[in-house]
């Protein structure tokens, strides 16, 4: 496939980002069932608890924007690079065309890409914040996600902001082949540059985080938290099971076991995340950070 074709294919589309009316993007009137305690819950109630089951503490999946809003100061979030979205660089077509998966993801999530990034403040501290959304091709990392994450680290370094990322991912995005693989190196390099600037990076791993995202920027954070019940690893549990030819121990790759194995700092319930992140950032940015460089709305 000659490279010129891919360039021709580049185009400038525009997606209207429709932020869900309420948590999880589900309308208020809907009832949902808790997979843990099996109770039926009223969606309006669940939304008020950041989508945590009020009976058993089960953490429902949250959409990217709701995750950001749960952490950032109210109204402070301004999206960046909203126009960056996946193309189909390899004209990938196996089983079904990649473009079809993308269209479906866009339609169902209302998002342009699997990660939402931007500027915000958390208790007044300037941050560059991002959240991944599992509804968008399993929150996998292709060129667009890699680009947005790299840009986020770059803008944070330039404007002396902390980076806070809420991460979930199925891994590198198969449908962009080796280009996706290289996004691991690209994002890790951006995180490393940022880190050399003496600024803090806090990552929050949520269910599920695997493969090329875990093994690149996600775990390069200075402080790593995970939500209760999150499963995090490099190889998926099924592959591991095939490899060792016996069943996996209970709790394998769970957030709780990651703490025991020394990989993350703590398991933090969703309701406590904002406070914990705020406290950590206060420590890691205590050298009165320079006021963030002014940026015009046009750059966003």
């Amino acid at each position: 496939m000659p490279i010129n074709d891919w360039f021709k294919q580049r185009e400038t589309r525009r997606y209207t980002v429709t932020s869900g009316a309420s948590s999880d993007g589900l309308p208020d009137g809907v009832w949902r069932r808790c997979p843990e305690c099996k109770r039926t819950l009223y969606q309006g109630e669940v939304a008020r608890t950041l989508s945590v089951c009020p009976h058993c503490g089960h953490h429902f999946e949250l959409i990217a924007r709701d995750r950001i809003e749960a952490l950032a100061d109210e109204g402070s979030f301004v999206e960046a690079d909203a126009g960056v979205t996946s193309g189909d660089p390899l004209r990938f077509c196996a089983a079904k065309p990649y473009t079809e998966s993308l269209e479906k993801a866009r339609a169902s999530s209302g998002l342009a890409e699997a990660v939402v990034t931007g500027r915000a403040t958390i208790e007044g501290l300037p941050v560059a914040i991002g959240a991944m959304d599992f509804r968008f091709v399993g929150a996998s990392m292709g060129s667009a996600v890699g680009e947005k994450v790299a840009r986020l680290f770059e803008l944070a370094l330039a404007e002396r902001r902390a980076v806070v990322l809420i991460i979930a991912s199925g891994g590198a995005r198969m449908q962009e082949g080796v280009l996706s693989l290289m996004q691991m190196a690209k994002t890790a390099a951006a995180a490393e540059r940022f880190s050399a600037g003496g600024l803090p990076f806090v990552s929050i791993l949520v269910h599920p985080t695997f493969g090329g995202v875990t093994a690149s920027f996600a775990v390069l954070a200075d402080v790593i938290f995970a939500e209760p019940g999150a499963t995090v690893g490099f190889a998926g549990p099924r592959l591991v099971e095939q490899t060792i030819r016996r069943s996996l121990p209970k709790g394998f790759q769970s957030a709780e076991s990651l703490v025991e194995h020394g990989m993350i700092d703590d398991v933090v319930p969703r309701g406590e995340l904002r406070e914990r992140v705020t406290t950590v950032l206060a420590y890691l940015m205590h050298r009165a950070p320079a006021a963030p460089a002014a940026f015009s709305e046009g750059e966003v």
Partner: protein
Amino acid sequence: MARFVMEFERPLVELEEKLADLKKIDLAAMPDLAAEITDLENEVERLRQTMYQALSPWEKVQVSRHPERPKTPDYLEQLFTDVVELRGDRAFGDDEAIVTALATLGDRRVMVIGHRKGRTTKENVKRNFGSPHPEGFRKAERAMRLAAKFRLPVVTFLDTAGAAPGLEDEERGQAWAIANCLATLSALPVPVVVVAIGEGGSGGALAIGFGDRLIMLENAYYSVISPEMCAVILYKDAARAAESAAALSLTAQDLLGLGIADEIVAEPLGGAHRDAEAVVAAAGERIAAALAELGGLDAAALVERRYERLRAIGEFVEATGT
């Protein structure tokens, strides 16, 4: 020639065997056989050309895995002198799936880091078939840091199906070990020349697999996922790996087209194992040339250039307005 025969080679090999049998016959006793042999020789040659000159991605993957293909130890032995192996991660173990060594190429002292597949089954078991455990990546990271401290250029050899996916690999932080390699590699203040000599499987390859120059052997591959695993995900059928391989853009030619690989080292018809010494020597020349070119850049320029190379990889769509 008791060599390993790849599935797609079988028709050719059968003809070659038939030809060899014919040649054992006393031609003086059967004069009209000579013409038949010549015909067959032409047929074999034609088949060899068409088959090997147009290997499909999946066939290339098979060639890249050929057990007799030259492996990292072959490059170390043939190209380098004064090799001093450095072992261990100083914390848990010495992973023999990765080799790190001080080594000299011509008159240039470098740090070599490579996946180390074995030549025999016994060796392969000991080396986990070149699939590193976390301590292997940590050993590689230690070698990178030593190279940085003593300003030794780094030459890496990629040949792995991927990082080991065992239970204990997960428990000891496989993802963490790989990510730290990526971060360290990205900031190394010395030239980094990467040579993809066989398999380039996913994060396990990438951990030592990017730098200032990527040289790929003609039949080496570099992929985000193995074609088999991709086929399982897409088709629920590992047997459809050929289709996945074609879709994944994993060949050296694909990577050159994408601007990720910088150059390709040609292999003899049939694969590097048909003339290992020549292929290794050719790779050595490319490595030496790359080191000579990169040697002129100072540390800051190298790191900046490497970052820009990485930043440029990827194709996406960007809306111009908000």
